[in-house]
């Protein structure tokens, strides 16, 4: 007799626990619009705003006169753990002072090797490079991921030391 009682007790207990779980599911089923955290990603491209600090890709900022702040000091190249940044620099005579000054020829950035660790950005003494929150850089060819960050014809800003 005792065995039969406990048998049925077990069954009722089991049904009770299952219904408790179903109650949670039922609550969210009936309040389906209450909290939606998923986003319709490719459709919401126009309105999607990433956080300011989100690290998507390294960029060299240029102002409206096509001037940047990179002195070619290679601090970022040394700080990078993966050899992502390669700076090819040149020396050019300053027309005002007549001294030879270092300028960058090519700022090569291998995006395919970049781990977006932000060490280059914090090591830059002139804040020339920064992280851009844009993404979607998948390509069919690995070559496209090697970029030259300084725009053609760009110069170093005058006030940068």
């Amino acid at each position: 007799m005792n065995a039969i009682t406990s048998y049925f007790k077990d069954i009722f207990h089991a049904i009770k626990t299952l219904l408790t779980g179903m109650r949670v599911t039922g609550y969210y089923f009936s309040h389906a619009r209450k909290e939606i955290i998923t986003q319709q990603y490719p459709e919401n491209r126009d309105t999607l705003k990433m956080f300011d600090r989100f690290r998507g890709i390294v960029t060299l900022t240029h102002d409206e006169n096509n001037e940047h702040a990179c002195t070619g000091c290679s601090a970022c190249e040394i700080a990078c753990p993966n050899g992502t940044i390669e700076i090819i620099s040149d020396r050019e005579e300053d027309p005002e002072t007549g001294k030879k000054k270092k300028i960058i020829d090519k700022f090569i950035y291998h995006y395919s090797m970049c781990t977006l660790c932000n060490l280059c950005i914090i090591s830059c003494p002139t804040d020339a490079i920064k992280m851009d929150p844009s993404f979607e850089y998948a390509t069919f060819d690995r070559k496209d991921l090697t970029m030259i960050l300084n725009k053609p014809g760009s110069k170093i800003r005058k006030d940068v030391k």
Partner: protein
Amino acid sequence: MIEEVETKDAIKTQEYFVNMGPQHPSTHGVLRLMLELDGEIIKKVTPHIGYIHRSIEKMSEKDSYRQIVHLTDRMDYLSNHMNNEAVCLLVENALEVEVSDRVKVIRTIMSELTRLSSHQLWWGVMGMDLGALTTFLYAFRDREMINDIFEETCGARLTVNYNVPGGVMFDIHPNFQQRVKDFIKSFKTKLPEYDDLLSNNVIFRQRTEGVGILSKEDAISYGVTGPTGRASGFSNDTRKHKPYSAYDRVEFKEILMDKGDTFSRYKARILEMWESVSIIEQLIDNIPEGDIQEPSVKQVIKLPKGEFYQSVETARGELGVYVVSDGQKSPYRLKFRSPGFSNLFVLDHMVRGYKIADLVAMMSTIDLVIPDIDR
């Protein structure tokens, strides 16, 4: 190795080997378990690791101390903040630098948020391993809020690289405190749902209670740490025994269970989430002012000659970093004592005599992260 054994019914059967993994979903990554089976009863488990070995320790030998930090993100990717913190604390202790209170509190809050997010993911995956897809969706719903907090303050969701030797990379975002408070408020109502959905479920209880018992003595001799060890009654919380950052100024309980079965390990993690919530609540309203980076730590860091060790409590157990320095800017030798490695090899001891379905449940409660084991 194949030999014939006689079962009780005198029917001759053959012992055989089955490879579980490296592509099996319940091994949570590329872990290969070689099972020696008699029918469905497990005689022996041999874990084969090395499928995701990236030689992080060797790579660290050519990197500077600032660069090593970002590699540790890729070890135990669910405890990224604690891994970063371990290396940073080691460098700070070796240089005898004291970081500001602000940094300590920020690091503690971040670590506890990481612990919460790791345990949430574990909870979701644990349910899914046992055949309940529901839990996975609920866990990821709550985890999303933590990921947003990380993304706003640190700039990344998983490989955050937020700690630097001597401080943190950025100051906290102006929205940080409000977001954390919102999260804590909502998560306190969500956590009881976890019990309703899974902890009290009869199917779950019957599959976990009394299964895979690990005694306290075995936990100690295998070096099992973290919630896995604490569920067997082995008091090993680094936060309590060797307090670092701001853990000495907050009150929290070390969760100790006595049974050591699969359900105890499950329960220990659920209770640990409540403790993490309480730690964050104590700290979030009074983040002191101060420098976010210690100015005395130079750009090029050279540790003094000698050996250094620092351990932190990650979501899986005790992570130890051991550095032999010869005075150069990169370590002569660096060794990570990862919690997952020790916890994995107790599996063979636990699982003998049980069935394959129990192995899946046990493996879930050990909470394996394979990149942490292989490094």
